[in-house]
C-alpha cells in the first residue's frame, strides 16, 4: 500500500478514478489475493475436518473427534492470528511429527509394557466368550434336531422336534424342554405352537446375537446337555466342558474338576501353572524388559550378535564411505571424458530396490548354481552364504555394493562445495596431493558428511531387509537352542525371538525395540557432540 502511494504522490494528485484503479490493481496483486488463498485453503481444511467430525460423531469415536476439533480450532487460530508467525511455519511439521513419529513411538513403548501377543490379544470378556464357545462339545451320536426359534413375551425359545419319535417340545434359556401338544407341523418340523410366536428367518438374523446365546437345557439334569442352534434351523445337543463362575471369576473344567483362577497373569491359570488360552491383554510392568536381558535362551547368543551388529554397522559405513569418496574424487577430475555417463552407471545400484538386489545377490552366491561360482570362479564351490566367516564377508560385500552410491553422491556434492582456492593455496605452499587430501579436503568433507555417516550407522544398525533377504541370519549357531545364526544382527534376532513359529510376542518385541532405540540414540548423541569439535576447525 505504501509502495503505490509513494510512487504516485510526487506526481500530480491522483483523481478519484485513478485512486480507484490503483486500489483495484493493488487488491488483485497484493495481500488480498493471498488472503483469499489463505481463506480458501483454510476453508478446505475446515470442510474436511467438519466432515471427519461428522463421521466420527456418528461412530461415537469421542477421543478422535475431540482431537480433530481441537486441532482444527488451533490451526484456524494460528493462521488467522497476526502474531503467531513462528507457529505458522512450524505447525504443519509438528502435526506430521506427532502423527507419524511421536504417536508410533509412544504406542510401541506402551506395547512394551503389556503382554500383547499370541493368546493375549483381546479383552477378558472376549476371552471368556471364546473359551465358553469352544468348550461346547456335541454329544456323540446325537441326532440333528429340526428347530424353530419362537418368542413369548419378549423371551426367545426353541421349538424342538425330536427326529426319532416326532415329539415336539419347547424351552428357553431358563426353562428346560417341555413337551407341547397341538404344534403345527410342516413335514418333520414343528413350525408353530400355541402361545408362542414363530420368528421368520429374517427376524432370526436380526436377533442373531440373542439366538447365538440361546441354550435350552435338554432336561432338568444339566449333565444331559443343552440344545443350541448355530444356523437358526437345526439344533444340536451340546455339553460344555468348562463352567464359568462369574462371581468368583474362575473357570472350572467339568470333567477333571480343575479350577482355573484369574491370578493376574492375563489368563485363567490352574494351581499347577497350566493356562487356558486364549487369555487377555494386561499391562505387565517391566517384565518384558527383564526378560529381554535375562532370558536364558536369548542371553547365549546375545553377546556375539551384539558384537557382529556393531562390526557390521561400522564396517559398512566405513567401506561405503571410503569407496564412495574415492570414486567421487576420481570422477571430480574435470579432465575425464564421459564423466556424467560413468556417474550415472555408478548410481545404478542405488536406483534398484534393496529388496530385489539382496535376493539377486543371494541367487548369485548360491554354492552350486550361483553366477559367482559357476562363471566368475569357473565352477568352484565356494560356500559364500553357508560358511560362518564367508557369510559375514558376503553380507559386507553386498552392503558395500548397495551403499556406496549414496556415499558417492554425498561426497560428490560436498567436494564441489570446497572452494578451489584452498586447493591452490595448499599447492602453492608445497603440499603434495596426499597432504592436500588428508589435511585439508577430508576434514572439510567430514564437517558436512558426519551427520550423514551417523544416520547411515543408525540405518545399518537396523538393516533388517538386507540380512533377511540375503542370509536370513544363517548359518545357524550350532550350540544355542534358538534359531539364531552367525549373520543375525540385533533387530533380526529380536524378530526371531519374538515371532518364532506361531507365537507373536509383540510385548517382548516392543521392549527390545525400545532398548535398541536407546542404544542407537545414545551413540548418535555422542557422535553429534564429537562433530561439534570438527566444526570448530572451520
Amino acid at each position, binding site marked *: 500500500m505504501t509502495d503505490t502511494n509513494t510512487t504516485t504522490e510526487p506526481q500530480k494528485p491522483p483523481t478519484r478514478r485513478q485512486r480507484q484503479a490503483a486500489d483495484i490493481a493493488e487488491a488483485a496483486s497484493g495481500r488480498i489475493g*493471498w488472503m483469499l*488463498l*489463505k481463506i480458501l*485453503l483454510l476453508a478446505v*481444511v475446515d470442510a*474436511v475436518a467438519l*466432515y*471427519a467430525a461428522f*463421521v*466420527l460423531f456418528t*461412530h461415537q*469415536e469421542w477421543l*478422535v473427534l475431540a482431537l*480433530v476439533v481441537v486441532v482444527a480450532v488451533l*490451526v484456524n487460530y494460528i*493462521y488467522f492470528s497476526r502474531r503467531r508467525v513462528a507457529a*505458522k*511455519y512450524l*505447525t504443519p511439521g509438528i*502435526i506430521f511429527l506427532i502423527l507419524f513419529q511421536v504417536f508410533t513411538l509412544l504406542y510401541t513403548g506402551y506395547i512394551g509394557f503389556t503382554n500383547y501377543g*499370541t*493368546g493375549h*490379544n*483381546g*479383552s477378558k470378556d*472376549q476371552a471368556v*466368550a*471364546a*473359551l465358553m*464357545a*469352544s468348550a*461346547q*462339545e456335541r454329544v456323540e451320536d446325537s441326532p440333528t434336531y429340526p428347530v424353530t426359534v419362537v418368542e413369548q413375551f419378549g423371551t426367545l425359545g426353541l421349538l424342538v422336534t425330536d427326529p426319532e419319535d416326532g415329539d415336539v417340545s419347547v424351552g428357553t434359556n431358563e426353562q428346560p424342554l417341555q413337551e407341547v401338544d397341538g404344534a403345527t407341523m410342516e413335514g418333520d418340523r414343528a413350525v408353530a405352537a400355541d402361545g408362542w410366536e414363530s420368528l421368520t428367518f*429374517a427376524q*432370526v*438374523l*436380526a436377533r*442373531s*446375537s440373542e439366538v*447365538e446365546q440361546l441354550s435350552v437345557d435338554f432336561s432338568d439334569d444339566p449333565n444331559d446337555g443343552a440344545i443350541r*442352534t*448355530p*444356523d*437358526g434351523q*437345526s439344533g444340536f445337543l451340546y455339553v460344555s466342558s468348562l463352567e464359568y463362575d462369574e462371581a468368583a471369576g474362575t473357570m472350572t473344567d467339568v470333567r477333571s474338576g480343575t479350577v482355573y483362577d484369574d491370578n493376574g497373569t492375563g489368563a485363567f491359570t490352574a494351581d499347577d501353572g497350566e493356562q487356558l*488360552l486364549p487369555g487377555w491383554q494386561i499391562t505387565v510392568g517391566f517384565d518384558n524388559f527383564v526378560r529381554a536381558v535375562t532370558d536364558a535362551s536369548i542371553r547365549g547368543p546375545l553377546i556375539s550378535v551384539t558384537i557382529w551388529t556393531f562390526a557390521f554397522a561400522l564396517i559398512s559405513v566405513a567401506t561405503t564411505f571410503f569407496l564412495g569418496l574415492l570414486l567421487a574424487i576420481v570422477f571430480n577430475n574435470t579432465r575425464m571424458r564421459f564423466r556424467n555417463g560413468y556417474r550415472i552407471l555408478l548410481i545404478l545400484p542405488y536406483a534398484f530396490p534393496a529388496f530385489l538386489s539382496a535376493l539377486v545377490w543371494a*541367487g548369485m552366491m*548360491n554354492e*552350486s*548354481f550361483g553366477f559367482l561360482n559357476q562363471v566368475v570362479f569357473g565352477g568352484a564351490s565356494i560356500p559364500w552364504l*553357508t560358511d560362518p566367516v564367508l557369510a559375514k564377508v558376503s553380507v559386507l560385500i553386498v552392503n558395500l555394493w548397495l551403499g556406496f552410491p549414496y556415499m558417492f553422491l554425498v561426497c560428490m556434492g560436498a567436494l564441489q562445495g570446497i572452494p578451489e582456492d584452498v586447493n591452490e593455496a595448499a599447492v602453492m605452499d608445497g603440499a603434495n596431493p596426499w597432504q592436500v587430501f588428508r589435511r585439508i579436503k577430508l576434514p572439510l568433507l567430514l564437517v558436512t558428511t558426519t551427520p550423514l555417516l551417523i544416520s547411515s550407522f543408525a540405518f545399518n544398525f537396523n538393516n533388517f531387509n538386507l540380512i533377511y533377504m540375503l542370509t*536370513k541370519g544363517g*548359518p545357524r549357531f550350532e550350540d544355542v*537352542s534358538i*534359531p539364531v545364526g552367525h549373520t543375525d544382527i540385533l533387530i533380526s534376532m529380536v524378530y526371531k525371538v519374538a515371532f*518364532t*513359529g*506361531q*507365537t*507373536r510376542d509383540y510385548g517382548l518385541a516392543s521392549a527390545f525395540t525400545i532398548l535398541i532405540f536407546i542404544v542407537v540414540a545414545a551413540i548418535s548423541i555422542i557422535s553429534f557432540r564429537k562433530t561439534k569439535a570438527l566444526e570448530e576447525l572451520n
Partner: protein
Amino acid sequence: MKVNMRGIAAFGAIAVVSTLTLAGCATGATDDSADAEGDAGSLVVWVDAERVDALKGAADAYQDKTGVEVEVVAKDVDTIKDDFIQQVPTGKGPDITMGAHDWLGELSTNGVVAPLELGDSAEDYLPVALQAATYDGTVYMLPYAVENIAVLRNADLVPDAPTGFDDMIAKGKAAGLAQPFVVEQGVEGNPYHLYPFQTAFGAPVFGTDDSGSYDATDLQLGSEGGAAFSTWLGAQGAAGTLNTDVDGEIAKQQFIDGQAAFWLTGPWNVGAAVDAGVNVAIDPIPSPTGEAASPFAGVKGFFVSSESENKVAANDFLVNYLGTEEVQLALFESGNILPALTAAADTAASDPIIAGFKTVGADAVPMPAIPAMGSVWEFWGVAEAAVINGADPAATWQKLVEDVTAAIK
C-alpha cells in the same frame, strides 16, 4: 508472507490427507458394525483376490434368498492371517475369512474363531479335510480345497511310473540324466517336501490321541524311524540325489529343461510345467522303504470370527451355500486345487492331473495345526539341511529332537 502461504498449502495437504485417512478408517468401520443395525444384516467375507469372482455367485444367491448382504473383500493372502488376528478383537474384523487349516492353532489360541457346526453334512467331505477342520475335538472350518504334493514325471523321458525311490533314480539314470530327481530345498532345508520320505520310515512328527487330533506331548520325531530317516538323508546327500542348493526356482528350471525327469512338488507348479510343454504325469511319491510315503495335506477353508455380530447368517452361508458342489467347483475353477467336498472332488477328478493328486492325497495326513508345530518348523529344516550337507546323521537328529522338545516346553 509468501513462505507463510506455502506453509498453509502444506498444512492444507497434510490436514486433508490425514483427516481423509481417519475418516476412511471410520467409514471402513461402518460396513462392519452396520451388521447389528440392519434388518437382515450383512456379512463381510475376506478372500484372496483370485477367488473373489468364484464367491460372487454364492454371495448373490444368498442375498437374493435371505436379504443378507454379503460383501466379498479381496485381501492379500500373505497378511490375511495377521490382519484377522489383530482386527477381530477390536470388533472391526470381517465375519468370515478364508484361510488354511494350519492357522487353527494360532487362531484358536487367540480366541478369534467361532466353532462351526457342519451337522450331518460333515460326512460329505473328504476324511482328511474333515480331520483338518477339527481342532481339539471341535470343528472350526468349512473346508473347500485339499492340497498335497506328488511327483511330477516327464512322461517323454521316463514312460513308466517308478515302483520305489531307488527305482526312480535308476529309471532316470537309464534315461541318461545326471540328476533325475529334484525337490525344492534351500539353505534352511524344506521339511515339508521331505516329509513323505520321513513318514515312509515310520517317523511322523507327532502322535495322535484317541480322537485323531495331534498330541503335542507325543513327539514322534525322535523315534527309531527318525534316526533311520536321517541316515537315509545323509546317504542321499552324499550321493547328490538331494541338494540344498536346489531351491524352488532351480528345481522348476531343471524339470522344464528336461534335465530332471521327476519333480516332487505341489499342484501350484503343474501349470508352469504344462505351459512349458512338458508331458506331465502325476505319480504317487516313490517310497524309499516300501511303506506308504504320506505327504502333508494342506486344507483350505473358511472361518467364522468369534466377534461376528451375525454368526447365525455366517454359519448358514458357509454350511448351506459354500458347502454345495456348485460353489466348491466354482472355487476349484479359480484355483485348480482339489475340492474338499467329496462329490465335487469326484467331478474335478475327471482331469487326470487332479485325479493323480487325489490318489496321492488319499495317503496324506493333515499338517499339524497345534502351536507346538511352529517350534518344530524352526529347527527341522536346518537340521535336515545339515544332514544332507554331510553332518553326522545320528547326532544332528538327536540335537533336533532335543531342541524341539526344549522349545515346546
